[in-house]
Protein backbone atom coordinates (compact mmCIF):
# COMPACT_ATOMS: atom_id res chain seq x y z
CA UNK A 1 0.00 0.00 0.00
CA UNK A 2 2.73 2.35 1.00
CA UNK A 3 4.52 1.50 -2.20
CA UNK A 4 1.53 2.35 -4.33
CA UNK A 5 1.27 5.71 -2.69
CA UNK A 6 4.95 6.33 -3.25
CA UNK A 7 4.71 5.38 -6.89
CA UNK A 8 1.64 7.51 -7.44
CA UNK A 9 3.21 10.40 -5.68
CA UNK A 10 6.42 10.05 -7.66
CA UNK A 11 4.59 9.92 -10.95
CA UNK A 12 2.39 12.83 -10.08
CA UNK A 13 5.33 14.95 -9.10
CA UNK A 14 7.28 14.09 -12.24
CA UNK A 15 4.22 14.75 -14.40
CA UNK A 16 3.77 18.08 -12.75
CA UNK A 17 7.40 19.02 -13.28
CA UNK A 18 7.19 17.88 -16.91
CA UNK A 19 4.00 19.83 -17.43
CA UNK A 20 5.62 22.86 -15.89
CA UNK A 21 8.61 22.64 -18.19
CA UNK A 22 6.52 22.09 -21.28
CA UNK A 23 3.99 24.71 -20.35
CA UNK A 24 6.57 27.40 -19.79
CA UNK A 25 8.39 26.55 -22.99
CA UNK A 26 5.13 26.66 -24.83
CA UNK A 27 4.27 30.06 -23.49
CA UNK A 28 7.69 31.39 -24.39
CA UNK A 29 7.80 29.91 -27.87
CA UNK A 30 4.20 30.30 -28.93
CA UNK A 31 4.41 34.02 -29.44
CA UNK A 32 7.69 33.78 -31.26
CA UNK A 33 6.29 31.09 -33.49
CA UNK A 34 3.28 33.10 -34.47
CA UNK A 35 5.37 36.14 -35.08
CA UNK A 36 7.81 34.25 -37.23
CA UNK A 37 5.07 32.65 -39.27
CA UNK A 38 3.46 36.00 -39.82
CA UNK A 39 6.74 37.57 -40.86
CA UNK A 40 7.39 34.69 -43.21
CA UNK A 41 4.09 35.05 -45.04
CA UNK A 42 4.43 38.80 -45.04
CA UNK A 43 7.86 38.57 -46.62
CA UNK A 44 6.59 36.24 -49.29
CA UNK A 45 3.83 38.69 -50.08
CA UNK A 46 6.10 41.67 -50.19
CA UNK A 47 8.43 39.68 -52.37
CA UNK A 48 5.60 39.08 -54.79
CA UNK A 49 4.90 42.76 -54.94
CA UNK A 50 8.49 43.33 -55.85
CA UNK A 51 9.82 44.52 -52.52
CA UNK A 52 13.03 42.97 -51.30
CA UNK A 53 15.52 43.83 -48.65
CA UNK A 54 17.45 45.90 -51.13
CA UNK A 55 14.31 47.61 -52.25
CA UNK A 56 12.12 47.84 -49.13
CA UNK A 57 8.45 48.55 -49.11
CA UNK A 58 7.46 52.20 -48.74
CA UNK A 59 6.13 53.21 -45.36
CA UNK A 60 2.65 53.93 -46.60
CA UNK A 61 2.09 50.40 -47.82
CA UNK A 62 -0.75 48.83 -45.88
CA UNK A 63 -2.00 45.28 -45.97
CA UNK A 64 -5.61 44.66 -45.09
CA UNK A 65 -7.19 41.27 -44.79
CA UNK A 66 -10.73 40.44 -45.80
CA UNK A 67 -12.18 37.22 -44.40
CA UNK A 68 -15.02 35.42 -46.03
CA UNK A 69 -17.47 33.23 -44.12
CA UNK A 70 -20.42 31.16 -45.23
CA UNK A 71 -23.36 31.70 -42.95
CA UNK A 72 -26.07 29.11 -42.77
CA UNK A 73 -29.48 29.76 -41.33
CA UNK A 74 -31.45 26.59 -41.84
CA UNK A 75 -31.45 26.07 -45.57
CA UNK A 76 -30.62 29.64 -46.40
CA UNK A 77 -27.00 30.40 -47.12
CA UNK A 78 -25.51 33.82 -47.11
CA UNK A 79 -21.99 35.14 -47.41
CA UNK A 80 -20.37 37.16 -44.70
CA UNK A 81 -17.36 39.35 -45.46
CA UNK A 82 -15.31 40.65 -42.59
CA UNK A 83 -14.01 43.90 -43.97
CA UNK A 84 -11.68 46.34 -42.24
CA UNK A 85 -13.31 49.72 -41.83
CA UNK A 86 -11.68 53.01 -40.99
CA UNK A 87 -13.39 54.41 -38.00
CA UNK A 88 -12.66 57.54 -36.05
CA UNK A 89 -9.44 56.43 -34.50
CA UNK A 90 -8.35 52.96 -35.67
CA UNK A 91 -9.21 50.28 -38.14
CA UNK A 92 -12.01 48.02 -36.95
CA UNK A 93 -13.82 45.13 -38.61
CA UNK A 94 -17.35 45.02 -39.83
CA UNK A 95 -19.29 42.02 -41.05
CA UNK A 96 -21.11 42.59 -44.30
CA UNK A 97 -23.66 39.93 -45.16
CA UNK A 98 -24.84 39.47 -48.70
CA UNK A 99 -27.08 36.85 -50.24
CA UNK A 100 -26.00 34.50 -52.95
CA UNK A 101 -27.05 36.90 -55.70
CA UNK A 102 -24.92 39.67 -54.31
CA UNK A 103 -27.73 41.64 -52.66
CA UNK A 104 -27.14 43.33 -49.34
CA UNK A 105 -28.63 41.60 -46.33
CA UNK A 106 -27.16 42.90 -43.13
CA UNK A 107 -24.21 44.64 -41.56
CA UNK A 108 -22.69 44.27 -38.09
CA UNK A 109 -19.93 46.00 -36.22
CA UNK A 110 -17.39 43.62 -34.78
CA UNK A 111 -15.33 44.24 -31.72
CA UNK A 112 -11.97 43.07 -33.01
CA UNK A 113 -8.72 44.69 -34.03
CA UNK A 114 -6.82 43.65 -37.17
CA UNK A 115 -4.06 42.13 -35.07
CA UNK A 116 -6.48 39.97 -33.15
CA UNK A 117 -8.36 39.11 -36.30
CA UNK A 118 -5.40 37.07 -37.43
CA UNK A 119 -6.43 34.45 -34.88
CA UNK A 120 -9.22 32.18 -36.06
CA UNK A 121 -10.42 31.73 -32.50
CA UNK A 122 -10.69 35.44 -31.88
CA UNK A 123 -12.63 35.94 -35.07
CA UNK A 124 -14.99 33.14 -34.18
CA UNK A 125 -15.78 34.60 -30.79
CA UNK A 126 -16.33 38.06 -32.28
CA UNK A 127 -18.65 36.62 -34.91
CA UNK A 128 -20.50 34.58 -32.34
CA UNK A 129 -21.35 37.77 -30.54
CA UNK A 130 -23.34 39.08 -33.51
CA UNK A 131 -24.52 35.92 -35.26
CA UNK A 132 -26.83 34.30 -32.76
CA UNK A 133 -27.79 30.65 -33.08
CA UNK A 134 -29.33 28.87 -34.98
CA UNK A 135 -27.19 30.74 -37.44
CA UNK A 136 -23.90 28.99 -38.00
CA UNK A 137 -20.88 30.14 -39.89
CA UNK A 138 -17.92 28.45 -41.56
CA UNK A 139 -14.66 30.10 -42.49
CA UNK A 140 -14.09 30.03 -46.20
CA UNK A 141 -11.07 32.04 -47.27
CA UNK A 142 -9.24 35.29 -46.89
CA UNK A 143 -7.79 37.86 -49.24
CA UNK A 144 -5.12 40.41 -48.51
CA UNK A 145 -5.49 43.77 -50.13
CA UNK A 146 -2.40 45.91 -50.45
CA UNK A 147 -2.84 49.61 -50.51
CA UNK A 148 -0.19 52.13 -51.31
CA UNK A 149 -1.22 55.56 -50.20
CA UNK A 150 -4.65 56.14 -51.62
CA UNK A 151 -4.30 53.63 -54.38
CA UNK A 152 -5.23 49.96 -54.27
CA UNK A 153 -2.02 48.29 -55.28
CA UNK A 154 -2.76 44.57 -55.43
CA UNK A 155 -4.70 41.61 -54.14
CA UNK A 156 -2.83 38.78 -52.53
CA UNK A 157 -4.64 35.48 -52.73
CA UNK A 158 -3.52 32.45 -50.76
CA UNK A 159 -4.80 29.30 -52.42
CA UNK A 160 -4.61 25.57 -52.28
CA UNK A 161 -5.43 23.04 -54.96
CA UNK A 162 -4.67 19.39 -55.69
CA UNK A 163 -1.42 18.74 -57.51
CA UNK A 164 -0.01 15.53 -58.95
CA UNK A 165 0.52 14.02 -55.54
CA UNK A 166 -1.02 16.02 -52.71
CA UNK A 167 -1.87 19.66 -52.41
CA UNK A 168 -0.04 22.63 -53.79
CA UNK A 169 -0.22 25.81 -51.74
CA UNK A 170 0.39 29.10 -53.48
CA UNK A 171 0.12 32.82 -53.01
CA UNK A 172 -0.98 34.83 -56.02
CA UNK A 173 -0.56 38.56 -56.42
CA UNK A 174 -2.86 40.27 -58.90
CA UNK A 175 -3.40 43.92 -59.64
CA UNK A 176 -6.80 45.67 -59.43
CA UNK A 177 -7.52 44.77 -63.04
CA UNK A 178 -6.88 41.11 -62.12
CA UNK A 179 -3.66 40.88 -64.10
CA UNK A 180 -1.15 38.56 -62.48
CA UNK A 181 1.75 40.29 -60.77
CA UNK A 182 3.38 37.20 -59.37
CA UNK A 183 2.99 33.62 -58.22
CA UNK A 184 4.77 32.00 -55.32
CA UNK A 185 4.60 28.28 -54.52
CA UNK A 186 4.51 27.96 -50.75
CA UNK A 187 4.17 24.24 -50.18
CA UNK A 188 4.02 21.19 -52.38
CA UNK A 189 4.98 17.53 -52.41
CA UNK A 190 5.59 16.98 -56.11
CA UNK A 191 8.30 14.62 -57.31
CA UNK A 192 11.80 16.01 -57.20
CA UNK A 193 13.16 16.64 -60.66
CA UNK A 194 9.72 16.55 -62.21
CA UNK A 195 6.74 18.26 -60.63
CA UNK A 196 8.93 20.00 -58.09
CA UNK A 197 10.23 22.18 -60.94
CA UNK A 198 7.06 24.26 -60.55
CA UNK A 199 9.08 26.19 -58.00
CA UNK A 200 11.55 27.22 -60.67
CA UNK A 201 11.48 30.73 -62.05
CA UNK A 202 11.15 29.58 -65.62
CA UNK A 203 7.84 28.02 -64.81
CA UNK A 204 6.18 30.28 -62.30
CA UNK A 205 7.29 33.53 -63.93
CA UNK A 206 5.35 32.53 -67.02
CA UNK A 207 2.24 33.59 -65.18
CA UNK A 208 3.55 37.10 -64.65
CA UNK A 209 1.76 39.71 -66.65
CA UNK A 210 -0.99 37.46 -67.96
CA UNK A 211 -4.14 39.52 -68.32
CA UNK A 212 -7.47 38.52 -66.85
CA UNK A 213 -8.89 37.90 -70.30
CA UNK A 214 -6.05 35.51 -71.09
CA UNK A 215 -6.15 33.81 -67.74
CA UNK A 216 -9.83 32.98 -68.13
CA UNK A 217 -9.07 30.63 -71.00
CA UNK A 218 -5.45 29.84 -70.36
CA UNK A 219 -4.19 26.38 -71.14
CA UNK A 220 -1.06 24.31 -71.06
CA UNK A 221 0.99 23.60 -74.14
CA UNK A 222 3.37 20.70 -74.47
CA UNK A 223 5.68 22.51 -76.84
CA UNK A 224 9.23 22.93 -75.58
CA UNK A 225 9.98 26.19 -73.85
CA UNK A 226 11.76 28.54 -76.32
CA UNK A 227 15.33 29.35 -75.30
CA UNK A 228 14.98 33.11 -75.44
CA UNK A 229 11.83 32.98 -73.33
CA UNK A 230 13.52 30.81 -70.77
CA UNK A 231 16.35 33.26 -70.54
CA UNK A 232 13.88 36.06 -70.11
CA UNK A 233 12.00 34.23 -67.40
CA UNK A 234 15.15 33.49 -65.45
CA UNK A 235 16.51 36.99 -65.89
CA UNK A 236 15.90 37.94 -62.28
CA UNK A 237 18.28 35.29 -61.07
CA UNK A 238 21.51 37.07 -61.79
CA UNK A 239 23.34 34.31 -63.61
CA UNK A 240 24.05 35.15 -67.18
CA UNK A 241 24.13 38.60 -68.62
CA UNK A 242 20.90 40.56 -68.21
CA UNK A 243 18.97 41.00 -71.38
CA UNK A 244 18.94 44.44 -72.94
CA UNK A 245 15.84 46.46 -72.28
CA UNK A 246 14.53 46.46 -75.79
CA UNK A 247 14.84 42.71 -76.10
CA UNK A 248 13.01 42.23 -72.85
CA UNK A 249 10.07 44.20 -74.09
CA UNK A 250 9.84 42.40 -77.40
CA UNK A 251 10.02 39.03 -75.72
CA UNK A 252 7.40 40.04 -73.22
CA UNK A 253 4.98 41.22 -75.85
CA UNK A 254 5.70 38.14 -77.95
CA UNK A 255 4.87 35.65 -75.23
CA UNK A 256 2.34 37.62 -73.20
CA UNK A 257 -0.67 35.95 -74.73
CA UNK A 258 0.76 32.49 -75.09
CA UNK A 259 -0.36 29.51 -73.08
CA UNK A 260 1.76 28.17 -70.25
CA UNK A 261 4.64 25.99 -71.43
CA UNK A 262 4.44 22.74 -69.52
CA UNK A 263 7.40 21.31 -67.64
CA UNK A 264 8.95 18.44 -69.52
CA UNK A 265 7.74 15.19 -68.06
CA UNK A 266 5.46 16.91 -65.57
CA UNK A 267 2.46 17.97 -67.58
CA UNK A 268 0.10 16.98 -64.81
CA UNK A 269 1.73 19.24 -62.26
CA UNK A 270 1.94 22.08 -64.77
CA UNK A 271 -1.69 21.68 -65.64
CA UNK A 272 -2.66 21.47 -61.99
CA UNK A 273 -0.97 24.78 -61.24
CA UNK A 274 -2.39 26.47 -64.32
CA UNK A 275 -5.91 25.29 -63.63
CA UNK A 276 -5.59 26.12 -59.96
CA UNK A 277 -4.44 29.66 -60.72
CA UNK A 278 -7.14 30.09 -63.34
CA UNK A 279 -9.80 28.95 -60.89
CA UNK A 280 -8.64 31.13 -58.05
CA UNK A 281 -8.55 34.25 -60.18
CA UNK A 282 -11.87 33.60 -61.89
CA UNK A 283 -13.66 33.08 -58.61
CA UNK A 284 -11.93 35.96 -56.95
CA UNK A 285 -12.72 38.41 -59.74
CA UNK A 286 -16.35 37.44 -59.64
CA UNK A 287 -16.57 37.97 -55.91
CA UNK A 288 -14.46 41.09 -55.73
CA UNK A 289 -16.64 42.84 -58.27
CA UNK A 290 -19.72 42.02 -56.25
CA UNK A 291 -18.18 43.07 -52.99
CA UNK A 292 -16.96 46.32 -54.46
CA UNK A 293 -20.33 47.19 -55.86
CA UNK A 294 -21.95 46.36 -52.56
CA UNK A 295 -19.47 48.50 -50.68
CA UNK A 296 -20.04 51.48 -52.90
CA UNK A 297 -23.78 50.91 -52.78
CA UNK A 298 -23.88 50.80 -49.00
CA UNK A 299 -21.22 53.45 -48.56
CA UNK A 300 -19.13 51.37 -46.25
CA UNK A 301 -15.96 53.24 -45.31
CA UNK A 302 -13.63 50.37 -45.97
CA UNK A 303 -10.00 50.78 -45.21
CA UNK A 304 -8.77 49.43 -48.55
Amino acid at each position, binding site marked *: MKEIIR*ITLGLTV*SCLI*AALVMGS*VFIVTDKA*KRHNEHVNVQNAMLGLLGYTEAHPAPSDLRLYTVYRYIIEDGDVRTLGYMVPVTGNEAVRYQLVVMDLDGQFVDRFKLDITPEKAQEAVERASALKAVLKPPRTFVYSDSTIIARLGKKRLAYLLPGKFPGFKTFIQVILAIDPSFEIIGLEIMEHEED*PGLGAEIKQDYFKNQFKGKSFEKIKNINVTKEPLPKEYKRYLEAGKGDGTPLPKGVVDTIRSKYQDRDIYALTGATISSKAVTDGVKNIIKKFAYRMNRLDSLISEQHIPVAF
Partner: protein
Amino acid sequence: MPATTKTNFQLFTNGILNENPIFRLALSMCPAVGISTTVMNGIMLGIAVLFVQVFSSCTISLIKNYIHPRIRIPTYTLTIATWVTVIDLVLAAFLPAAYKEMGIFVKLIVAFAIITMRLEIFACKNSVTSSFWDGVGMGLGFMFGMMAIGFVRELLGMGTILGHDVLGFRPLLFFVLPAAGFFCVGIMMAMFNYVELVYNRKKRAEKR
Protein backbone atom coordinates in the same frame (compact mmCIF):
# COMPACT_ATOMS: atom_id res chain seq x y z
CA MET B 1 26.48 -3.21 -13.67
CA PRO B 2 28.82 -1.06 -11.66
CA ALA B 3 29.36 2.54 -12.54
CA THR B 4 31.44 2.91 -15.62
CA THR B 5 35.20 2.90 -15.40
CA LYS B 6 35.69 4.63 -18.69
CA THR B 7 37.02 8.13 -18.84
CA ASN B 8 34.86 10.88 -20.15
CA PHE B 9 36.82 10.96 -23.38
CA GLN B 10 36.27 7.25 -23.91
CA LEU B 11 32.58 7.69 -23.30
CA PHE B 12 32.56 10.48 -25.81
CA THR B 13 34.30 8.54 -28.57
CA ASN B 14 32.40 5.37 -27.82
CA GLY B 15 29.20 6.81 -29.19
CA ILE B 16 30.86 8.15 -32.28
CA LEU B 17 32.82 5.06 -33.29
CA ASN B 18 32.38 1.77 -31.48
CA GLU B 19 28.71 2.07 -30.81
CA ASN B 20 27.62 4.43 -33.52
CA PRO B 21 23.84 4.43 -33.21
CA ILE B 22 23.21 4.27 -36.94
CA PHE B 23 25.92 2.06 -38.38
CA ARG B 24 26.79 -0.18 -35.47
CA LEU B 25 23.72 -0.42 -33.29
CA ALA B 26 21.32 0.01 -36.22
CA LEU B 27 18.93 2.03 -34.15
CA SER B 28 16.99 5.13 -35.17
CA MET B 29 17.00 4.19 -38.82
CA CYS B 30 13.87 6.04 -39.91
CA PRO B 31 15.41 9.52 -40.13
CA ALA B 32 18.62 8.03 -41.49
CA VAL B 33 16.61 6.89 -44.49
CA GLY B 34 13.78 9.40 -44.56
CA ILE B 35 15.32 12.83 -44.32
CA SER B 36 19.03 12.36 -44.78
CA THR B 37 18.88 14.09 -48.14
CA THR B 38 21.11 16.99 -47.15
CA VAL B 39 23.91 17.61 -44.72
CA MET B 40 21.89 20.41 -43.19
CA ASN B 41 19.02 18.10 -42.33
CA GLY B 42 21.49 15.77 -40.70
CA ILE B 43 22.95 18.56 -38.62
CA MET B 44 19.56 19.89 -37.57
CA LEU B 45 18.09 16.57 -36.57
CA GLY B 46 21.41 15.64 -35.02
CA ILE B 47 21.27 18.72 -32.83
CA ALA B 48 17.72 17.89 -31.82
CA VAL B 49 18.67 14.34 -30.90
CA LEU B 50 21.81 15.54 -29.13
CA PHE B 51 19.73 17.93 -27.09
CA VAL B 52 17.14 15.34 -26.15
CA GLN B 53 19.76 12.70 -25.39
CA VAL B 54 21.93 14.92 -23.24
CA PHE B 55 19.08 16.46 -21.30
CA SER B 56 17.27 13.16 -20.78
CA SER B 57 20.50 11.43 -19.69
CA CYS B 58 21.28 14.19 -17.25
CA THR B 59 17.75 14.30 -15.92
CA ILE B 60 17.57 10.60 -15.33
CA SER B 61 21.00 10.44 -13.83
CA LEU B 62 20.08 13.30 -11.51
CA ILE B 63 16.94 11.68 -10.22
CA LYS B 64 18.09 8.08 -10.50
CA ASN B 65 17.93 7.54 -6.78
CA TYR B 66 14.34 8.62 -6.56
CA ILE B 67 12.95 6.50 -9.37
CA HIS B 68 10.98 3.56 -8.18
CA PRO B 69 12.22 0.57 -10.20
CA ARG B 70 8.73 -0.43 -11.21
CA ILE B 71 7.95 2.82 -12.94
CA ARG B 72 11.36 3.10 -14.53
CA ILE B 73 10.20 2.85 -18.13
CA PRO B 74 7.26 5.26 -17.78
CA THR B 75 9.60 7.76 -16.21
CA TYR B 76 12.03 7.46 -19.08
CA THR B 77 9.24 7.90 -21.57
CA LEU B 78 7.92 10.92 -19.76
CA THR B 79 11.36 12.48 -19.59
CA ILE B 80 12.09 11.93 -23.24
CA ALA B 81 8.67 13.11 -24.31
CA THR B 82 9.09 16.27 -22.28
CA TRP B 83 12.41 17.15 -23.84
CA VAL B 84 11.17 16.25 -27.30
CA THR B 85 8.23 18.58 -26.81
CA VAL B 86 10.58 21.31 -25.72
CA ILE B 87 12.88 20.97 -28.72
CA ASP B 88 9.88 20.60 -31.02
CA LEU B 89 8.37 23.84 -29.80
CA VAL B 90 11.66 25.68 -29.90
CA LEU B 91 12.49 24.56 -33.42
CA ALA B 92 9.00 25.34 -34.64
CA ALA B 93 9.26 28.82 -33.23
CA PHE B 94 12.78 29.84 -34.15
CA LEU B 95 13.78 27.76 -37.14
CA PRO B 96 10.52 27.28 -39.02
CA ALA B 97 12.16 26.50 -42.34
CA ALA B 98 14.36 23.71 -40.99
CA TYR B 99 11.49 22.45 -38.89
CA LYS B 100 9.29 22.14 -41.92
CA GLU B 101 12.03 20.29 -43.77
CA MET B 102 12.26 17.70 -41.01
CA GLY B 103 8.53 17.30 -40.78
CA ILE B 104 7.25 14.70 -38.43
CA PHE B 105 10.68 13.33 -37.57
CA VAL B 106 11.38 15.80 -34.75
CA LYS B 107 8.31 14.56 -32.95
CA LEU B 108 9.29 11.00 -33.67
CA ILE B 109 12.50 11.36 -31.69
CA VAL B 110 10.27 10.25 -28.84
CA ALA B 111 10.13 6.77 -30.32
CA PHE B 112 13.88 6.45 -30.93
CA ALA B 113 15.07 3.30 -29.29
CA ILE B 114 18.58 4.66 -28.89
CA ILE B 115 17.62 7.24 -26.28
CA THR B 116 15.63 4.91 -24.07
CA MET B 117 18.38 2.36 -24.41
CA ARG B 118 21.08 4.73 -23.20
CA LEU B 119 18.92 5.75 -20.27
CA GLU B 120 18.29 2.17 -19.31
CA ILE B 121 21.80 0.82 -19.65
CA PHE B 122 23.83 3.87 -18.79
CA ALA B 123 22.30 6.98 -17.32
CA CYS B 124 20.38 5.29 -14.54
CA LYS B 125 23.58 3.81 -13.14
CA ASN B 126 26.14 6.51 -13.63
CA SER B 127 27.00 9.97 -12.47
CA VAL B 128 25.71 13.07 -14.14
CA THR B 129 29.07 13.89 -15.71
CA SER B 130 29.51 10.44 -17.22
CA SER B 131 25.95 10.48 -18.45
CA PHE B 132 26.51 13.87 -19.96
CA TRP B 133 29.55 12.73 -21.90
CA ASP B 134 27.84 9.53 -22.91
CA GLY B 135 24.85 11.51 -24.14
CA VAL B 136 27.06 13.88 -26.07
CA GLY B 137 28.91 10.99 -27.64
CA MET B 138 25.73 9.23 -28.68
CA GLY B 139 24.14 12.39 -29.96
CA LEU B 140 27.22 13.31 -31.94
CA GLY B 141 27.49 9.76 -33.23
CA PHE B 142 23.99 10.01 -34.54
CA MET B 143 24.70 13.43 -35.98
CA PHE B 144 27.86 12.29 -37.75
CA GLY B 145 26.04 9.30 -39.15
CA MET B 146 23.28 11.49 -40.47
CA MET B 147 25.80 13.94 -41.86
CA ALA B 148 27.75 11.22 -43.61
CA ILE B 149 24.67 9.89 -45.33
CA GLY B 150 23.49 13.41 -46.02
CA PHE B 151 26.84 14.28 -47.53
CA VAL B 152 26.72 11.40 -50.00
CA ARG B 153 23.14 11.97 -50.92
CA GLU B 154 23.38 15.71 -51.25
CA LEU B 155 26.54 15.51 -53.31
CA LEU B 156 25.29 12.80 -55.63
CA GLY B 157 21.69 13.89 -55.72
CA MET B 158 21.97 17.63 -56.05
CA GLY B 159 25.63 18.31 -56.65
CA THR B 160 25.76 20.57 -53.63
CA ILE B 161 27.16 20.47 -50.12
CA LEU B 162 25.40 22.43 -47.42
CA GLY B 163 23.54 24.16 -50.19
CA HIS B 164 26.69 25.32 -51.99
CA ASP B 165 26.98 24.23 -55.56
CA VAL B 166 30.04 22.03 -55.80
CA LEU B 167 29.69 20.01 -58.95
CA GLY B 168 27.69 22.49 -60.95
CA PHE B 169 25.21 19.89 -62.13
CA ARG B 170 22.88 17.32 -60.63
CA PRO B 171 24.49 13.93 -61.16
CA LEU B 172 21.92 11.38 -60.01
CA LEU B 173 18.56 12.64 -59.00
CA PHE B 174 17.89 9.20 -57.61
CA PHE B 175 19.84 10.01 -54.46
CA VAL B 176 17.39 12.72 -53.49
CA LEU B 177 14.60 10.17 -53.39
CA PRO B 178 14.07 8.48 -50.06
CA ALA B 179 14.42 5.07 -51.73
CA ALA B 180 18.11 5.87 -52.12
CA GLY B 181 18.36 6.29 -48.36
CA PHE B 182 18.01 2.54 -47.98
CA PHE B 183 20.84 1.89 -50.42
CA CYS B 184 23.10 4.50 -48.84
CA VAL B 185 22.59 3.17 -45.34
CA GLY B 186 22.98 -0.43 -46.50
CA ILE B 187 26.17 0.23 -48.42
CA MET B 188 27.67 2.36 -45.64
CA MET B 189 26.91 -0.35 -43.11
CA ALA B 190 28.66 -2.82 -45.38
CA MET B 191 31.63 -0.47 -45.49
CA PHE B 192 31.76 -0.37 -41.69
CA ASN B 193 31.63 -4.17 -41.72
CA TYR B 194 34.41 -4.30 -44.27
CA VAL B 195 36.65 -2.05 -42.17
CA GLU B 196 35.99 -4.25 -39.17
CA LEU B 197 36.76 -7.36 -41.20
CA VAL B 198 40.07 -5.98 -42.40
CA TYR B 199 40.92 -4.74 -38.92
CA ASN B 200 40.20 -8.11 -37.34
CA ARG B 201 42.20 -9.89 -39.99
CA LYS B 202 45.14 -7.63 -39.34
CA LYS B 203 44.86 -8.22 -35.62
CA ARG B 204 44.79 -11.94 -36.09
CA ALA B 205 47.79 -11.73 -38.36
CA GLU B 206 49.68 -9.73 -35.75
CA LYS B 207 48.93 -12.29 -33.09
CA ARG B 208 50.48 -14.95 -35.19
